[in-house]
């Protein structure tokens, strides 16, 4: 061994190692959207189903993976879209999120495809705290397997923040009700309207496991002068949205200032426009570009005539006779220090006073666990957050699991779903007496050739050059009148088809078989994005500059295959591959093949399947 090393050191720096395509992560990463999705939804597969008009099949792929396709197709934070390869070869990614909605809008009745309540219970009882997306996912995964799930929530309906914080003009109630009902049909025990005030007390009950999916329910305060005096017209954003959702609040003053630059602020300002706010402004401390809100949510707000003013730091709520009169702002600018950190420094200009009747404060949310005792073996970190394992979702009390915003602070629905799946796996493992880390079942993976004929594939490999299609909106005259009228109309079937055709089918992988290659260069010559090279092997940084076209994106792998007759290596830069299959079409020996990669993350039912197989 030592001799090998000595010999290796004598020759020049070693080239790259051949790619291990048997490692599921390799091809999974190539499917950028699926890799970026916390729940790892097989996106290209459902998009193909949409293109084929098989909306129900598309819906079911989503439902198994992300539980709330109709909700997410309207509200997801879409981590898949910035990752989409299409955005690297032309201007914009595929409208993945809104295609998901198409599946939900156009599906048939799916109830006969859904799991049924367990015929036989297995005697295990699990308490789920909070009836939001995380807990509902755990319930969906465990109920059909025979676990008894008891669903607690302070609110009278299931849905959590999807119901209380997302305005109905973005997410109609019927869509949420439908998808919650699919889970309620699995017959969890419902303890709605029942707030949990003590985890210790709950642990003393006969539950085998407890899942905490109680969200991040506390809106951050803005303690500046005047807050107390003018409190009648200053509202915390998420509480106010919740009151609107439940019909407790039906109006707001004509002039409204929304403080904060996140998606909650966008929901607050747009809701205000519908409750009587004629002059609604969003005012943020930072610059417009640095706002946390998703770009499309900012667009939607601006489209409704809501200006976004930036670089204004609130100093004081002004008031007269106990009534709010406006907000005083300090004008600031961004300056960057030597380490590139941004500081907001006063410009020296006079403060700006902006008059208003109501203020909505949407400057962030926090977790709040006053109901979790600190002597129950459940450790908290220095930020007063529970210590939770990022893979197993288990806390330091082995019977207690966390998920959603309750686990690691405010994220979004799709993360809550992903946490729910993993927590369900952990709970099933733990209750089987297995190790929640070591015994986790692997994902389901498959790799299947798509070859149908000499140059025919079972997927449409002709690349659409269409630019991203816009989702049609209902006109402001209609939508601004009623807080319950949905703004987005969704793609119709024709638009959906065209948008679906923009998908590059990144799950159909280019798989190379060195033994068959005769090094004729046909693939190199035909590749429209110059991503294939046959060359001498080198260390990665050098190799990346010596390819047919440079490969500067280190986040995207190089696919390396060795064993060629000339001693060279095949290098394929995965970065901008169109998955058009032309390399495989022009390959005379079938050394390239287009194979569909399928990956389905393991769920709780796999734990049970493994157990049954063992028995």
């Amino acid at each position: 061994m030592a001799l090998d090393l000595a010999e290796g050191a004598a020759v020049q720096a070693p080239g790259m190692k051949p790619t291990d395509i048997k490692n599921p992560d390799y091809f999974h990463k190539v499917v950028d959207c699926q890799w970026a999705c916390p729940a790892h939804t097989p996106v290209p597969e459902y998009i193909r189903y949409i293109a084929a008009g098989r909306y129900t099949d598309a819906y079911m792929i989503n439902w198994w993976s992300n539980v709330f396709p109709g909700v997410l197709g309207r509200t997801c934070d879409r981590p898949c879209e910035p990752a989409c390869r299409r955005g690297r070869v032309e201007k914009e990614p595929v409208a993945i999120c809104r295609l998901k909605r198409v599946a939900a809008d156009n599906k048939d009745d799916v109830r006969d495809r859904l799991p049924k309540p367990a015929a036989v219970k297995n005697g295990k009882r699990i308490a789920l705290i909070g009836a939001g997306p995380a807990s509902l996912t755990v319930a969906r995964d465990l109920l059909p397997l025979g676990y008894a799930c008891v669903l607690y929530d302070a609110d009278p309906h299931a849905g959590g923040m999807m119901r209380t914080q997302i305005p109905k003009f973005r997410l109609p109630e019927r869509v949420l009700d439908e998808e919650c009902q699919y889970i309620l049909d699995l017959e969890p025990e419902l303890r709605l309207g029942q707030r949990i005030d003590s985890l210790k007390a709950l642990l003393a009950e006969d539950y085998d496991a407890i899942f905490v999916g109680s969200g991040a329910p506390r809106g951050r305060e803005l303690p500046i002068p005047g807050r107390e005096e003018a409190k009648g017209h200053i509202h915390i954003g998420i509480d106010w949205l919740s009151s609107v959702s439940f019909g407790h609040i039906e109006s707001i003053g004509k002039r409204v200032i929304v403080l904060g630059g996140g998606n909650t602020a966008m929901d607050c300002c747009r809701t205000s426009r519908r409750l009587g706010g004629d002059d609604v402004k969003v005012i943020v401390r930072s610059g417009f570009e640095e706002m946390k809100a998703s770009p499309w949510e900012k667009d939607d707000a601006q489209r409704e005539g809501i200006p976004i003013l930036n670089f204004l730091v609130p100093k004081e709520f002004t008031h007269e006779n106990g009534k709010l009169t406006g907000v005083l702002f300090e004008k600031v600018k961004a300056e960057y220090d030597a380490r590139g950190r941004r500081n907001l420094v006063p410009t020296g200009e006079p403060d700006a006073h902006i008059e208003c009747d109501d203020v909505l404060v949407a400057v962030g949310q926090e977790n709040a666990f006053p109901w979790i005792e600190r002597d129950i073996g459940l450790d908290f970190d220095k930020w007063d957050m529970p210590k939770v394992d990022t893979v197993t979702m288990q806390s330091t009390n082995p019977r207690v699991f966390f998920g959603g915003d309750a686990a690691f602070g405010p994220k979004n629905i799709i993360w809550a779903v992903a946490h729910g799946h993993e927590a369900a796996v952990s709970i099933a493992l733990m209750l089987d007496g297995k190790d929640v880390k070591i015994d986790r079942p692997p994902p389901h993976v498959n790799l299947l050739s798509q070859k149908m004929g000499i140059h025919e594939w079972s997927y449409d490999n002709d690349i659409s050059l269409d630019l991203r299609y816009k989702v049609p909106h209902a006109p402001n005259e209609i939508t601004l009148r009623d807080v319950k009228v949905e703004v987005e109309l969704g793609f119709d079937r024709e638009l959906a088809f065209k948008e679906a055709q923009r998908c590059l089918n990144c799950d159909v992988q280019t798989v190379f078989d060195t033994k068959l290659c005769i090094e004729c260069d046909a693939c190199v010559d035909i590749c429209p994005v110059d991503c294939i090279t046959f060359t001498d092997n080198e260390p990665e940084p050098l190799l990346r500059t010596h390819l047919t076209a440079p490969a500067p994106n280190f986040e995207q792998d190089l696919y390396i295959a060795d064993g060629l007759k000339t001693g060279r290596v095949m290098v394929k830069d995965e970065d901008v591959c169109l998955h058009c299959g032309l390399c495989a079409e022009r390959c005379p020996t079938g050394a390239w093949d287009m194979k569909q990669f399928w990956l389905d993350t393991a769920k709780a039912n796999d734990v049970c399947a493994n157990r049954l197989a063992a028995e």
Partner: protein
Amino acid sequence: MTYITKPKLHHPALPKNSLGYTHRDYEGRISTLCAGCGHDSISAALIQACFELAIEPHRVAKLSGIGCSSKTPDYFLGQSHGFNAVHGRMPSVLTGANLANRDLIYLGVSGDGDSASIGLGQFAHCVRRGVNMVYICENNGVYGLTKGQFSATADKGSKSKTAVNSDSPIDLVSLALLLGATFVARGFSGDKKQLVPLLKAAIAHRGSAILDVISPCVQFNNNPESTKSYDFVREHNDAVNRIDFIVPKAEITVDYEPGAIETVRQHDGSVIKLAKLRPDYNPHDRAGAMAFCQAHAAKGEVVTGLLYIEDDAQDLHAHLNTVAAPLNGLGEADLCPGAKALDAINASYR
């Protein structure tokens, strides 16, 4: 055959030449040749050479005859002029076009059947006249379009799936040397590092530049006993030199072992840097080149590289002392100078 069009989407960081074009702008329609055909690699090499030379596509005329090779001008330089001639008759059409307009760059694209069988006479005469052109013979040793019979360049003893060739081969390199070509090279479709600089140097050459490019026929002549297969050519490739074609003003950046480098300056000021892989090989010696190629061919070796170059080559226009302007640029007064001029010409012959 591929049915989809090659997607227009391209690598976001493709280099552009001085005209602002990427190499994709020099492409033609998608190839209808068999998958893996060497000819497609030659098309790709031509695209790369024209891109690197920043040639304006409208300044190129592609001419071809009949055969797999002669279909290829459709697959590169889609914005250039093209003429698909009768079988074996591309050289005379090219000669005529060149006489009418010397300002264009002429790419004659032919194959072993089109050049060495039906068109052998045409080939011989356009070479000996010194027509300013790049004549590329995409040489696979078989008639691909008629299902793989041996062609005139197939080596004696070479085997196909069903037959053994018993005829003597025509070596187009030796023939071109014999006929007075002023630039003679042989390349291999599977080695673009060698082929692209050869094509660039040939395009810059004034005179008959003949490139014999071994281009395996994957369908009919890539079997183990063939002498025109990928494996055979790779194993028996005897490259006498490597050239690095340098355009005028370009910096010379490639480093070779001192003493092994020769620079050849062409009439347009461009410079060819020649790295000698065989120190004994002299590419300025026509007779020596012929002997070398014959001797190595007898040993079953495929000699490649720039085999012969005449530094002060002259072309047909110089021989004939023709007018410099293209005929389409001459006015009526020049083309029909009148009775007096005719009388003067007639008088000069009395």
